């Protein structure tokens, strides 16, 4: 029944995806539909909880059908148009390897009941508690005994797990890892179809393979997988808008970023990083205002969090801790380097960037700037953490950097692979 829940999520998200961007088609439409569907599920369950309506499968299904129906109605009144000059999508044999990686990830994610500590102590715990209560259990979140469960974390993932439990008529974590795998599949579809518009089939297929590898989070059941998918999807759509002045892509990007912020607090930092990057590189800085859906989607949780007094872990004395830790900056840097996951990939990406002509790096500066700002934010967090900093780095740095590998890889690979008419490399005399 988890499969039914996932399918329902995608179906509900389909008209919403078309409402935001009528140009979407193929895998990009399917992947975006699923990711937006997770947002619809999150919104429905949260609003029902706020309104005091107990969750039941018929009630939730009715609300989802209502939203999907309203979106479909709105979509039917809009004209469809295709991106002018977009390359047609073509499958390539490398896609078989991509399918194999996705299949392997599904097999891994569902090999056993979800085993990750942070699943049964944070994400799955909340999902299960809320399922038992048939609503958001604010008393549970507010209890000081449950501070370990990070009550300030946004609820997109727990509520989607609850949604799966409603369809399964009971909580069973045996198959919940499929949600992580579904998020990976969604971002692979988006990457493959969007890159096919600007790259040759072999290059697009190779990039799709990389997306499958880096989008398939090993942290099954945690929010890393959804954050990678939602965040990267949001950034890719904003990039598409910057290159083609496509309003639909900007809308979709903004909404996906809002949903990323509704998944983990790092998603909130991602919105800030995207805004900073747009401030630096957008031709029309007033466009930043058009990211308002991201903030609008995030605001209900911020308000609810404040209203219920749900505390974050950083607390007071942030500046004091920052100043005190400056003296240990070299030790922190050394620990960060030591704990870095996939160091060879990071080196390969940096080497790739160096190989790319400057003009191509400029084309990908939005993505690269977001990755840089987000990395800075993660490092800064260690200077203000209330926990033991070395312990915190050892237990979180590899997970956090996994959020950034996919957008970084996409920026580098697209820069390496781009071929455009009258491109600068001819001017440099490269045959």
């Amino acid at each position, binding site marked *: 029944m988890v499969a039914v829940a996932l399918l329902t999520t995608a179906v509900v998200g389909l008209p919403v995806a078309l409402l935001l961007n009528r140009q979407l088609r193929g895998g990009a439409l399917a992947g975006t539909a699923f990711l937006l569907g997770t947002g619809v599920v999150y919104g429905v369950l949260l609003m029902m909880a706020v309104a005091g309506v107990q969750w039941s499968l018929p009630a939730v299904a009715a609300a989802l059908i209502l939203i999907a129906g309203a979106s479909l109605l709105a979509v039917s009144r809009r004209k469809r148009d295709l991106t002018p000059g977009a390359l047609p999508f073509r499958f390539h044999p490398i896609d078989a390897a991509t399918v194999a990686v996705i299949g392997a990830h599904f097999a891994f994610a569902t090999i056993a009941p979800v085993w990750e*500590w942070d699943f049964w102590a944070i994400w799955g715990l909340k999902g299960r508690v809320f399922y038992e209560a048939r609503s958001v259990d604010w008393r549970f979140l507010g209890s000081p005994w449950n501070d370990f469960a990070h009550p300030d974390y946004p609820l997109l993932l727990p509520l989607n797990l609850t949604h799966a439990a409603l369809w399964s008529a009971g909580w069973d974590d045996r198959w919940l890892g499929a949600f992580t795998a579904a998020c990976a599949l969604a971002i692979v579809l988006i990457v493959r179809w969007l890159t096919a518009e600007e790259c040759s089939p072999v290059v697009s297929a190779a990039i799709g*393979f990389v997306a499958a590898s880096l989008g398939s989070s090993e942290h099954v059941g945690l929010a890393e997988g959804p954050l990678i998918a939602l965040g990267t999807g949001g950034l890719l759509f904003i990039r598409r808008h910057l290159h083609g002045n496509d309003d639909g892509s900007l809308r979709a990007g903004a909404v996906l970023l809002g949903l990323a912020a509704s998944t983990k607090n790092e998603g909130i930092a991602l919105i800030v990083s995207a805004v900073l990057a747009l401030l630096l590189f957008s031709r029309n800085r007033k466009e930043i205002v058009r990211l308002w859906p991201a903030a609008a989607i995030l605001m209900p949780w911020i308000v609810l969090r404040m209203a219920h007094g749900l505390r974050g872990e950083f607390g007071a004395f942030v500046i004091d801790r920052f100043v005190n830790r400056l003296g240990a900056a070299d030790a922190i840097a050394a620990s960060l380097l030591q704990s870095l996951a996939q160091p060879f990939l990071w080196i390969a990406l940096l080497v790739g960037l160096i190989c790319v002509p400057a003009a191509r790096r400029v084309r990908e500066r939005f993505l690269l700037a977001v990755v840089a700002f987000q990395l800075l934010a993660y490092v800064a967090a260690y200077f203000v953490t209330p926990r033991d900093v070395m312990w915190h780095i050892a237990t979180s740095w590899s997970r956090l950097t996994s959020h950034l590998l996919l957008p970084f890889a996409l920026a580098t690979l697209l820069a390496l692979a781009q071929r455009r008419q009258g491109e600068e490399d001819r001017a440099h005399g490269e045959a």
Partner: protein
Amino acid sequence: MWRRHLSLLAFLLIVVASTDYSVVYRLLFRYDALRSTLRQAADPSPWFPEYIRFLGEVRRKTAPGDSIALAVPALHWEYGYSYAYYRASYLLAGREVLPLITPNDRFLPDNLSAADRVAAWQSRVLADRPALWKGHGGVLLGR
């Protein structure tokens, strides 16, 4: 020309370096061992399997909304009690699980007296409460 070759090499390097081959290898050639490892990953020895079975029975013998104080042999938060408490919170979701020690290893007698039930696994609790059920190395005490 050399730049083009270097770009191609860098592209291929990134593609090759992006995959975690150890997971693929284990899925293809060590599936049963991987499954067995991950099935027990949440619950280290000596907790597995009796502590989990104990919590399963506690869940069956309590009602939603019951407050349950948790006693286990680990008396230090960082050396076992936190694991036992978080695990109980998950497996007894719907009940209110109350710790008996704080992260600073301070005992919480108020939680012991306030709880509807006490779930004591491989530990003795000095409290005047009737034993409702015994099994899997533990006892469930009533009010």
